[in-house]
């Protein structure tokens, strides 16, 4: 187990390095002079030179990469718009995004787990067709349409919930539903699929033959094994909520890192864009790492198989 976890951890190192390189390169993909793009062509020459020196753009590329990381993590790299350290700005907004993502996660699990189970138990019946119809629609409905439609219904027509902003629990409901719907759709499909796979297994036939009630067979025996493969899908989707939050936060003026990223792009604040993209990508890597470890803990076959494969 320890070997597997260490190996998985070691595999993450080159990925993190690659993410840092890619985020660093972003500034160099700007067509033309990035300083001119950020400040505008009419900015005073002295201002342009000052920013160029501050970002070390006059140094060789590998030196720039060192200073980029050094300045980012030491707080020297500042947002042009907010005029404060990039990491401080990102971390200051992070909590709002985590709050939204967690709420979306809870809502999507509350919907998808029962839906997937009912669809599997009633396979081929009306409930199953309706549940899978919801799943297909949930995957296809763009969040940037669902959000405004929820606002139209619950905020404008019914006047039940606030249109935008953050503060009370009521503010959280519509953004969380908007962000969580896609995940609910994918996870319910996954749970239905893995439960159907398990329902045909011999050990369940044995459990039934022993006279156990169908409810006990499903809840105590089938569900436990069926939910294990869902761990990785839930983990992946939970990570994807961070990028989904970019759109949801923009719709609902939610003050998280997603809406800040779009603001930073429109104000050409490239250091803040780089910092935000890096934090989202690294959080995603971390969530995937934790997911894989949780999967290995939950399913011993995974770690034994991987340890064997690694040992050969």
């Amino acid at each position, binding site marked *: 187990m320890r070997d597997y976890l260490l190996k998985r951890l070691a*595999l993450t190192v*080159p*990925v993190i390095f*690659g*993410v840092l390189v*890619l*985020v660093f390169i*972003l*500034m160099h*993909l*700007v*067509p033309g002079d*990035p300083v001119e793009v950020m400040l505008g062509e009419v900015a005073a020459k002295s201002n342009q030179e000052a920013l160029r020196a501050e970002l070390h753009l006059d140094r060789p590329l590998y030196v720039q990469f060192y200073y980029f990381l050094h300045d980012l993590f030491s707080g020297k790299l500042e947002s042009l718009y907010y005029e404060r350290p990039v990491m401080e700005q990102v971390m200051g907004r992070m909590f709002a995004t985590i709050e939204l993502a967690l709420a979306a996660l809870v809502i999507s699990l509350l919907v998808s787990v029962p839906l997937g189970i009912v669809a599997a138990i009633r396979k*081929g019946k009306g409930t199953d067709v309706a549940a899978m119809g919801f799943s*297909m*629609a949930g*995957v*296809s*409905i*763009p969040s*940037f*349409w669902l959000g*405004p*439609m929820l*606002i*139209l219904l619950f905020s*404008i027509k019914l006047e039940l919930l606030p249109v935008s902003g953050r503060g009370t629990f009521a503010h959280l409901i519509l953004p969380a539903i908007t962000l969580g719907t896609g995940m609910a759709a994918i996870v319910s499909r996954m749970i239905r699929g893995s439960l159907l796979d398990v329902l045909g297994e011999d050990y369940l036939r044995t459990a039934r033959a022993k006279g156990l009630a169908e409810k006990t067979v499903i809840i105590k025996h089938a569900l436990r094994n069926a939910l294990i493969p869902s761990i990785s899908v839930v983990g992946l989707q939970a*990570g*994807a909520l*961070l*990028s*989904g939050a*970019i*759109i949801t936060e*923009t*719709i609902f003026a939610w003050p998280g890192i997603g809406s800040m*990223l*779009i603001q930073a*792009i*429109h104000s050409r604040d*490239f250091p803040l*864009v780089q910092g935000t*993209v890096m934090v*989202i*990508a*690294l959080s*995603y*890597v971390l969530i*995937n790492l934790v997911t894989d470890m949780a999967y290995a803990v939950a399913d011993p076959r995974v770690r034994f198989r991987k340890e064997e494969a690694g040992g050969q």
Partner: protein
Amino acid sequence: MDNKGPGKAALWAGAIIAAVLFVSAGAAPWLAPYDPGAQELTRDISGPTLSHPLGQDNLGRDILSMIIYGARVSVIVGVGTVLLSAVIGFLAGAISGLKGGIWDQVIMRIVDVLLAFPGILLAIALTAVTGPGIGNVIIALSARGWVTYARIVRSQVLVERERGYVEAARSLGAGSGRIISLHLLPNTLTPVVVQATFGLAGAILAEASLSFLGLGPQEMPTWGAMLSDGTSYLRTAPHIAVFPGIAIMATVLAFNFMGDSLRDRLTKSGAK
């Protein structure tokens, strides 16, 4: 087996919507009742009427005409992204699987790094620095899009290369290029076609997302930008946001239906 009926219906429904999309994109100047840029600034924002079946937007432009023209961007970006991603992904996957060793290591580590960017984050980051424009959007979406094809092709190649015919071709002196184009390409095509169908849905949705955020193509009307404009008028003219959203959803649903259906059918026949 039991989903053969619905699968066929879904395939047809998807194909019909896809056909409407492609015809709208190709014949937009003849199908659109109005010039999509023509404004009627003196009028109030009008909902659906006989002369404007889907209403007009805040600038008095005809929404139906804008949706028909908007199909062009969806088709160009969708097809462009799928083609570029599939070509890069196929080559990367084939080289990775066939050559192995350091090639495989390098390509798969690049894949790992790109997969560290969830959803459309990388596309957002790239269009943020390269600027909007159809070409830039296609490149930004393909930058991560090829990864899925590369993984599919690599795993197919790993299976196929153990089969006798690749060995036979190699012993007859065929080079990697010949083996890839003549032998591996036809045998890896099925899963690539299925993925391309889902890829079209994904690319169209991603383009609409970028346009909604103000990062999409600016040359033509786009569904995402229309929807974004419409969100400012939800209280007084909700139709501006409703109709482009329906167009996006129907299109994405259509390609997802087709992808699901093709996967069921082609996998079955492939297994026989």
